[in-house]
């Protein structure tokens, strides 16, 4: 089948391209004063990677989604193998074994796994005859997700494993599961938070029971929800009291970095200073003192958004937010009118991955999300990450070009 270039969503492609170029510019600024030439050349490498990513994007656009549909489980199998392999032969950085190294190039199998799991879940959900809220359907999709999550947690990489869980939630939702279920599934986490005070927890449990009574999700599901909530609410204080002080501190710092201004909090504080001191118009390109003088940690990866906020101010930051919003808006629209159920799920899942990383990364730089180490899509430095996001854009654009196909 011939692909008509006029049928491609050029606006979407343009938005992603602009984000990628902004990224290259910010990487250049971030490492402008770096000690080694290697670091100063990060932006050149990122440009090369953008070329690679664009080629892969073009290839994906030309491949009919049907092919991915057929290959989904095979790719899933390969990704699991790679994730196992990386634990043994991966190169360790900062105590985490996440990459395969080929010379100076690094390949993170978890990025590939994101796509593979997306395909596998979409394929299963697209063709299953099981009802949306059936236990079997939920269990199978959960298992598909849990296997890579467990392997990634072993690396260890909490942030990336969360991406998979969020992906599962989004696909459940897009496949038709009511948000009531989603709320009930995550409810033990609320119970855990409320358990810090007995009164808050009592009120929470009452609210939960009322919610269950009104929504009537089914007996087994209801009982499971109550039991998990009670267990997490009661066990938490007991577990908490058994933790050593430094462990408590570590958890509290993860939740509230301001507690430890010298450790984890330092990054957040410096990031907030960088963004805030940018004001409305910013300090100008290559002029951010926080960035230039190394006060900002990881300015080219995790905290690239802080560089943007410092040098281009509110205007620059809002511009980037709007570009992302545009990409999400288009993606949801495309997912809604694709006739192929598989393609629709893939588009929604792809957008979901981008959305989650976008939210968590920027939320972290603004200081209201914990430090997870998730890069900002398209903008942060990192070859495989850039390739992954362009591949996701490729899938979205490809689905749009073939929206009439079943």
């Amino acid at each position, binding site marked *: 089948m011939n692909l008509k270039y006029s049928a491609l969503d050029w606006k979407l492609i343009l938005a992603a391209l602009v984000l990628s170029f902004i990224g290259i510019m910010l990487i250049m600024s971030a490492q402008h004063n770096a000690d080694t030439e290697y670091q100063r050349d990060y932006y050149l490498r990122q440009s090369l990677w953008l070329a690679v990513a664009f080629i892969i994007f073009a290839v994906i656009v030309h491949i009919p989604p049907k092919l991915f549909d057929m290959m989904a489980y095979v790719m899933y199998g390969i990704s699991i193998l790679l994730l196992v392999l990386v634990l043994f032969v991966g190169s360790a950085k900062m105590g985490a074994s996440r990459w395969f190294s080929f010379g100076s190039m690094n390949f993170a199998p978890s990025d590939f796994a994101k796509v593979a799991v997306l395909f596998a879940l979409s394929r299963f959900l697209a063709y299953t005859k099981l009802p949306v809220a059936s236990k079997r359907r939920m269990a199978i999709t959960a298992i598909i997700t849990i296997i890579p999550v467990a392997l990634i947690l072993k690396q260890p990489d909490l942030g990336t494993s969360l991406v998979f869980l969020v992906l599962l939630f989004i696909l459940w939702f897009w496949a038709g599961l009511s948000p009531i279920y989603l709320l009930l599934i995550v409810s033990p986490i609320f119970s855990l938070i409320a358990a810090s005070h007995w009164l808050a927890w009592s009120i929470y449990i009452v609210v939960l029971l009322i919610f269950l009574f009104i929504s009537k999700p089914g007996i087994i599901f209801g009982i499971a929800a109550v039991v998990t909530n009670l267990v997490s609410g009661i066990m938490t204080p007991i577990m908490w009291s058994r933790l050593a002080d430094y462990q408590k501190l570590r958890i509290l710092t993860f939740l509230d970095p301001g507690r430890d201004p010298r450790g984890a909090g330092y990054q957040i504080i410096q990031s907030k*200073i960088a963004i805030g001191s940018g*004001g409305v118009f910013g300090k100008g390109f290559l002029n951010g003192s926080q960035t230039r003088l*190394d006060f900002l940690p990881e300015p080219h990866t995790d905290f690239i958004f802080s560089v943007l906020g410092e040098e281009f101010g509110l205007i620059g930051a809002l511009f980037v937010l709007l570009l992302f919003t545009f990409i999400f808006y288009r993606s949801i629209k495309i997912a809604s009118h694709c006739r192929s159920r598989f393609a629709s799920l893939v588009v929604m899942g792809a957008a979901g991955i981008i959305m989650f990383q976008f939210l968590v990364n920027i939320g972290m730089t603004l200081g209201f999300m914990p430090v997870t180490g998730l890069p900002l899509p398209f903008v942060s430095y990192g070859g495989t990450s850039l390739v992954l996001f362009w591949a996701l854009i490729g899938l979205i654009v490809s689905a749009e070009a073939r929206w009439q196909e079943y």
Partner: protein
Amino acid sequence: MERFKLSLEYREKVGYLLVIVMLVVLSLGLFKLQIFQYRDLSEQSEKNRIRVEPILPRRGIVTDRFGKIIIDNRPSYTVSIIPSEIVDGKTIENLAELINLDSTQIVKRLKRNMISRYQQTPIKRDIPFETVAILEEQSNRFPGVTYQMERVRQYNHELNAETYTGYVGEISEDELKGRDPLLYHLGSITGKKGLEKQYDEILRGREGTNYIEVTASGQIIGEYPDKESTEAIPGANLVLSIDNELQLACTKALDTFCCGAIVAMDPRNGEILAMTSYPGYDANIFSSVIPESLWTEIRTDSTHPLLNRPLNGLYPPGSTVKFVGVGAGLEEGAVTENSIFKPCIGGYQFGNRFFRCWDPGGHGTLNAAHTLEQSCDVYMYQLGLKLGIDKLAEYYAACGFGSLTNVDLPREAKGLNPTTEYYDERYGKKKWTLGLVLNNSIGQGELLVTPLQLAQFFCGLANDGVVYQPHLVKKINRFNGIETEIQPKVAFNLPFSSNTMRILREGLMLVVEGEHGTAKRLKNEYYSIGGKTGTAENPHGENHSWFAGVAPLDNPEIIVVAIVENAGHGSEVAAPLVGSVIQSYMYRKLGIDVSDSIVVEKGLGQL
């Protein structure tokens, strides 16, 4: 179950809603930081990158009147810690061991003096060079520890001049209150006592500042472009009226005694030529952190080395103040030059008590000048009774006793000049007897003076009644070449007419020259000398021995007052001591070679 299945349209709307919520939340976050907290965060960002480094000025040096060094600066090493580079369990622990301080002490000093986590915080000043060598060789054992060259004060301890030099130390939080923040900040060195304190603002100069741009790791990028550095202004040098050689003579003279003080002044202008408090302390120990044990030792020493005797030592003046009583008697017409009282039979019966004269053999009848010569107590008792307590006190006060001399040193004691009012308050009305006036008239009892007050008074006697304010600083030499000469200031005039002064001066002469003079041993053929002995009764032990000497008598240019605590009679201890100090001054002036044996025989060589 299918009732939980949502329509596509509904799901799409939920999706849009989520996207919008995300956009709003993140935008609000941006607004909060970039609009509402912009000012705060900009300021923090500026603070982040600028390190203000003080450029310490050279503290002014202090010399004697001939330019010989009294206080100097010497280079030393100060060990500091950069708090952000501390490695737990290593930095502080290893350093504590190396420089002999407690870990807790180091932490305390870090907390007290820390300006920024990236700025070196001084921990201990004046560490020995060997310690610096260890820091250098084993730097990996001391992460975050640095050292700097710094000037510390060096006091010429041989002079035992701490009574006026004082010393410097780190400013305390109390001292910081109300001070100019441009001049003083935490960790600043400031004068704690003596001249160092009195002239601190002149001596310290003004700190310069370097604005340096630094990275997060504290690495220096270079000068901060938007703010120019300011140069340090060196402190002014002080030239004192002190004569180091005379100062040494004073210190040597007291060497064989437990405790005492000497003040030497020029009566013509109030310049202090030498002043010593014995025993003293070594101000150099304050350059570094004083070990707790040494500090306790100094503080609990029974000889009170920290007591500044010339200014704060309060002693009964004994017979040295008989000049005031005699002068008052002449002025008030209670006596004339040759009028006499009941003869001295070794004491005086007053009421049911026998007040003894110091000489149990008695002096017979004496006129005013001879009373001073032989220091007869009985004459003074009768004169005191005639004058009364308040008249006597009035003259003591007019001679400067009981009030500050306003010498250019901090923390001077006033002494005590009792009056009727004072006694009424102390003992209750009518609960004390006139016996007290007898004591007062011979300089005993409640009357308390400082050696400096007494020296000031004798300056007046030697200078025709004109009393200059005692002072130490002669000249202030500022770094820009401007020199300020300190002009002598007349403090007051003695309340005596010229006739009275003539009689008093005759007494002064007779003490040494007279046949029965109490200090006739000071008589020598090279120069004339006058003075007055004093023996202050001390309820706690042996009498204090006083002597005030004046030379040369015809045109006095030096007076020396000495007190030796618990040493006995003035004529036996303090007089020869003062004699030796005056001798060293006069011999130098007259060009007499001390090693000449004839001099030793004819002069005061054997004293």
